[in-house]
């Protein structure tokens, strides 16, 4: 009798589990969704997610919670997110930083092996700027001077093997000149080094520099893209200069590996609706993230991962990093 009762209990529990699993995909989402942001409050990734969250919440009908898991240059958040159940209730906001860490083998968790792509939200650009009071007028003059005086021109950027440093080094290499890259701790430090005349050039995004350029404090020399940016109509592109470099940081969402494809498809739809909402589109415009088309679906993001991984592997080899 006892055995039968036990078996009945087991079967009923099992059926509950199966029912729950089945219900998962159909009724998703039933409860709040966590988005792991691997950088601190106030960072670009954090503000992007916090701007999207209210719209996404409206579409999904459940709370969307931003979890800041900063530390270790964005790797701790990735390691944390990889450990969460692959049920669609945890998303991970990532950037090329996480591809770069894979290239450098910095963590046992890797983006492409431990996560499934969901969507890519935005694509930012890289600009080369200089102080308005600096010694150079434009990029051609700088490049010509650097050609004659190798290593004498300095450019400020952030983390030495981060996305902007790689882009800058690729630009410099394509131009065939020798410019010294000086890494700083934050965008604010880069801007003050440029304005203070401690470095010749700086490596920044549009949001950090547009106001400076408008205010006449800085000049924008170059943008790493094939088309000019609407906000910087007078700034030549790398392509104008014959340099084939178009890199730039992006921000995308991933889910732990093994998340059911139906759930990813559902998330993709919901995020697309939130992305297209008036509020988020207005925000993108305000913070200059509308300069280049950024939206990519799950498949597109998967390809972006593959291409970038390939590109950065080659870049590291070419640049001897």
């Amino acid at each position, binding site marked *: 009798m006892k055995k039968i009762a036990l078996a009945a209990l087991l079967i009923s529990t099992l059926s509950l589990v199966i029912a729950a699993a089945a219900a998962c995909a159909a009724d998703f989402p039933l409860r709040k969704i966590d988005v792991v942001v691997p950088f601190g409050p*106030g960072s670009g990734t954090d*503000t992007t997610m916090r701007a999207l969250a209210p719209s996404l919440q409206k579409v999904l009908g459940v709370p969307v919670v931003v979890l800041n898991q900063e*530390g270790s240059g964005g790797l701790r958040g990735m390691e944390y997110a990889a450990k969460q159940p692959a049920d669609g209730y945890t998303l991970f906001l990532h950037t090329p930083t996480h591809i770069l860490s894979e290239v450098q083998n910095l963590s*046992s968790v890797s983006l492409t092996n431990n996560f499934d792509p969901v969507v890519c939200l935005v694509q930012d650009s890289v600009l080369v700027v200089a102080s308005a009071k600096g010694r150079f007028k434009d990029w051609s003059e700088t490049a010509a001077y650097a050609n004659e005086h190798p290593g004498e021109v300095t450019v400020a950027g952030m983390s030495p093997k981060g996305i902007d440093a790689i882009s800058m080094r690729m630009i410099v290499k394509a131009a065939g000149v020798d410019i010294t890259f000086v890494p700083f701790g934050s965008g*604010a*430090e880069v801007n003050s080094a440029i304005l203070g*005349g401690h470095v010749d050039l700086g490596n920044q995004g549009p949001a950090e520099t547009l*106001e*400076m350029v408008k205010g006449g404090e800085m000049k924008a020399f170059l943008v790493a893209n094939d088309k000019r940016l609407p906000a910087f109509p007078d700034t030549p592109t790398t392509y104008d200069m014959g340099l084939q470099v178009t890199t730039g940081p992006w921000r995308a969402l991933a889910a732990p590996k093994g998340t059911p494809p139906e759930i990813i498809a559902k998330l993709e739809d919901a995020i697309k609706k939130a992305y297209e909402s008036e509020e988020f589109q207005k925000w993108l415009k305000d913070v200059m993230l509308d300069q280049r088309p950024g939206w990519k679906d799950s498949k597109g993001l998967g390809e972006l991962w593959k291409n970038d991984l390939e590109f950065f592997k080659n870049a590291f080899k070419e640049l001897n990093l």
Partner: protein
Amino acid sequence: MSIYELMMAGAAVVFTPKVLLFICIGNIMGVIFGALPGISASMAVALMIPFTLTLDPVGSIAFLSAVYCSAVTGGGIPAILFKIPGTPSSAVTTFDGYPLACRGKAGKALLLILVSSAFGGLVSALGMLLVSRQLSEIGLRFGPSELFAVAFLGLSVLTSMDEDKMLKTVISGLLGLFLATMAMDPVEGVPRLTFGSTYLLGGIPMIPAMVGMFAVSEVLKQVARPTEIKIDGTPSLKDSPMHVSFAEWWSLKWTMIRCSILGTLVGILPGAGATIASFLGYGMEIKLSKHPEEFGNGSLTGLCASETSNNAATGGAMVPLLSLGIPGGNAAAVMVAALMLQGVQVGPLLLKSQPSYLSSVFLSMAVTNVLMVVIAVVVAKMFVKLMKIPYYFLGPLIILFAAVGSYAAQNNITDILVTMLAGMAGYFMIEFRYSPAALTLGLVLGDICENNLRRAVMITRGDVLAVFARPITAGLMTVCVIFLLLPVIKKFLRSRRGV
């Protein structure tokens, strides 16, 4: 726009019932968040961002600067009472505040830090209002080589922190500098001394290290040698009337003025903030004091220096933010993010198009610096009640607070481990007469020293002499050398005379 019109525009923003109410709430929340270990001032500001969505951009920034100022002040309360720095910028407050509390003078210490904080905050807010453009230009002149000299000036205090055990203090400081190198190499971008763990890639986290070094080690010391400090003489506000005599205030006047100016200037510098300001202010006062031996044993000057400088840095941090759009520290960077969420771009044009930003931040800071004294007294009274708990309960509670605070800073379990290890290390350092304070100094200044020196050498393409040939750097380095060697020479002369 005349200053009168400017102030009226600011008053129109700040002195509305809604914004005033927000500033009051911001004050209360700021002091409480600041007093809770693990929540730094910038995190307190970040936590308040959701509330700004109901305010207009000018109102939000006024509200957030109120939170920022009061959080820096609130951090001093647990630093004095439990030796737990509530925010990293209050680490220095523990040096002299806690010994005072142990002598039953907690009330006096608290009053002193609140008034010094308010003084520092007001001076820097005034500086921001009147000469922000000039101040930000001074700030821009500090490039990598100058910033290295400033940080090195901070390190030069090592030889005078405790002249009797100078060697051990210097060793502790150097150990701190060494520990600061465990991170991703800032120039080459390769992991350095991380033993393959991703945890250390971001460096040793400051809050767990400080909480462990100061608070946990103190509890361990109390357990091992409980008789040394009579915590039973419960220092409550009633037992020690909050009374600082006029003569004592008067003797601190120059300290307050000097540290307000220093703190404001340090706040402006890129990459330095309230924490570094308080270490530098403390160091400067040791050097200028006639009684350097009192520092670390409950010196009123030391306490005043720490809290005046760190609050003065709050106004300083707002200077480059408002005049150039460059945030002068983490909390200011969070404010930029808050403005971005509302679609406002900060930049050099901000004040030209909307000068009310400057005057409303000033008025908000002025109101805050007066109001927070009252609020902080109330909060401090609540905290003082905790001191009535017998130490065999309070000790474990402090360890618990330390653990929760360390975890809260980054939601990371490993941080608690660091806190406990730092606590044990701190305990053994005290036992063998090494200096946890000097180690923390090295840890705090290590990054800014190393990064800026290496940047400076990169800019001059390996020419080290050219780095030090710049006028500001050369001047500061000369002062450093004098500061470093003076106590050594004094000691040498004294020993020769003795022979």
